C-alpha cells in the first residue's frame, strides 16, 4: 500500500519537474533565495542593532551592496534580516491552510446533500473576504505595533 503510493508520488513529482515552465523555475528560484536568506542570515553574525553607519543615503558600493538608508543602515543586511519576519508566518500560514484545507475539502467531497452544501457555503464566505482586508481589519482592532 505504502510503496505503490510513494512510487505514484515520485512519478507525479518527476512529471511536474519535467513539465514545469520557465516561470515555474523562476518562482522556485526566488522562493529558495528568500528561504536561504532567512535560514542563513543569523549564521552571518550580523547584529541587528549594529547596522548603523555614519554614511547616510549612500549609493550601492562594495562595503554596502544595496547602499544605506537615510539613517545610515545597511539596506542589504536589513533585507536579509527582514526575510525572517515573513518566512516564519508564511510557512505557518501554509501549514495551517493545508492542515485545515485538506480534511475540510475531503469532507466536502465525501459528504453529499445539505452538509456538503453548508460546508461549501461556509468556505465560500471565508474566501469572499480579501486577505489584505482581514489584515488591515486586524490592525484596526489590535493596532499596528508588534504582537
Amino acid at each position, binding site marked *: 500500500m505504502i510503496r505503490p503510493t510513494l512510487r505514484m508520488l515520485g512519478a507525479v513529482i518527476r512529471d511536474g519537474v519535467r513539465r514545469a515552465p520557465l516561470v515555474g523555475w523562476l518562482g522556485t528560484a*526566488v522562493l529558495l533565495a528568500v528561504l536561504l536568506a532567512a535560514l542563513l542570515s543569523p549564521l552571518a553574525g550580523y547584529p541587528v542593532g549594529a547596522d548603523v553607519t555614519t554614511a547616510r543615503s549612500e549609493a550601492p558600493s562594495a562595503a554596502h551592496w544595496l547602499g544605506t538608508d537615510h539613517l545610515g543602515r545597511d539596506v542589504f543586511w536589513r533585507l536579509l534580516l527582514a526575510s525572517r519576519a515573513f518566512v516564519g508566518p508564511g510557512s505557518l500560514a501554509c501549514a495551517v491552510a493545508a492542515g485545515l484545507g485538506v480534511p475540510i475539502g475531503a469532507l466536502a467531497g465525501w459528504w453529499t446533500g445539505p452538509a456538503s452544501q453548508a460546508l461549501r457555503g461556509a468556505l465560500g464566505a471565508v*474566501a*469572499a*473576504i480579501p486577505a489584505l*482586508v482581514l489584515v488591515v481589519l486586524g490592525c*484596526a482592532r489590535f493596532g499596528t505595533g508588534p504582537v
Partner: protein
Amino acid sequence: MSPGRRWVRLVALRLLGALGTVAGATALLLALLFLAPGDPIDTIPNGEALRPQLTEQFGLDRPPAVRWAVRLGRALVFDLGTSYVYRPGAPVAEVVARPAVRTVGLVAAACALAVGLGGLLAGITAGRRSALRPLVQAGSLVATFVLADVLVSGINDATWWALQAGWIERPAWFALPDQASLVRSALAVAILAGGSGTLAEVHAELEDALVRIRSSPWVDAARARGRVPWGAVLRAMVPAIASTLSDRAALLVGGALVVEHVLLMRGVGDILWQAARLRDYDLALAIALLSAVLVAGTRLLAEAATLLVDPRLRGAAR
C-alpha cells in the same frame, strides 16, 4: 415548469446563495472581533467615562447572534453604522459611498484590461511557441504593492530629476496627491490587472480555451463551409473568462485597496487604511463587508454570464 419560471427560480437561488455568502462573511468578521480582547469603546477617546451609555447605544449588552442579525438587517437597508474617529458622527454609508464607486470602477477597469489584453495576447500565442507567454507569466510574479511602489517611485523620481535638470516644464499630469489624475488612474488599472496575476491567468485560460475551440468539430465544420463563426467562438470563451475573474475577485478587491493606498487615490482602500490607523472600528468593518459584497457580486455576475452562454449548465443547475 415553464422556461420563465425556471429562470426566476434559477436567479432567486443564485441571489440567495450570494446573500448567504455575505451573511457568512459578516458572521466571520464579527466572530473575529468578538473573540478579540476589548470592545469598540476602548478605541473611542473618553470612551471609559461614557461606557454605560455607549454599551447600550452600540448594543454591546446583547448576545453575539442578536448583534449579528441586527447588523445584517441594517446593512440590507444601507445602514453601516457610524464613524467615530475618521469623521465623527457621520454615517459610514455616507463616508464610503462615493469612494466605493471609484473602487468599483478601478476593479471593473482592471478586469476589462485583463480580459482585453489577455484575449489579444492569447490570440497571438495560442498553439504557438512565443516569447510573450513567459514574459506575461513572469510579470505576474511581481506583487501588486511592489509593482505599484517601483513604478510610482520610478516615474516620480525620473520626472522630478528632469524638472530639476531644466529639461522639462512641470507636466500637466504631474498631479498633487489630492488631485485627480488620468495618468495615475491608468497606472493603477495596469498595476492591478498585471500585479494581481489576473492578466496572466486570463491569458493562460484563454490560450487553453482557444486551442480547444480551434480543434472542436463545430469549428472544423464551419471552416469547411468557408466561414469562421466568430460570435460562437467568443461565446465559447465566456466561461473561461468568467471562471478566472470569479477566482481572482478577492485578490482584485484586496489589490485595489493596496493600489489606492500606494497611489494616494481617494477610494475606500485609502479610507480603510486610515480607519485602521485611527482604529475606527465600525468604518473598517463596513469596508470589509463592502469588499465581501463586491467579491460575492463579481462571482454572481460570472456565474450568470456562464449560465447565459451555456444551455447545458442551465439544465444542470435546475
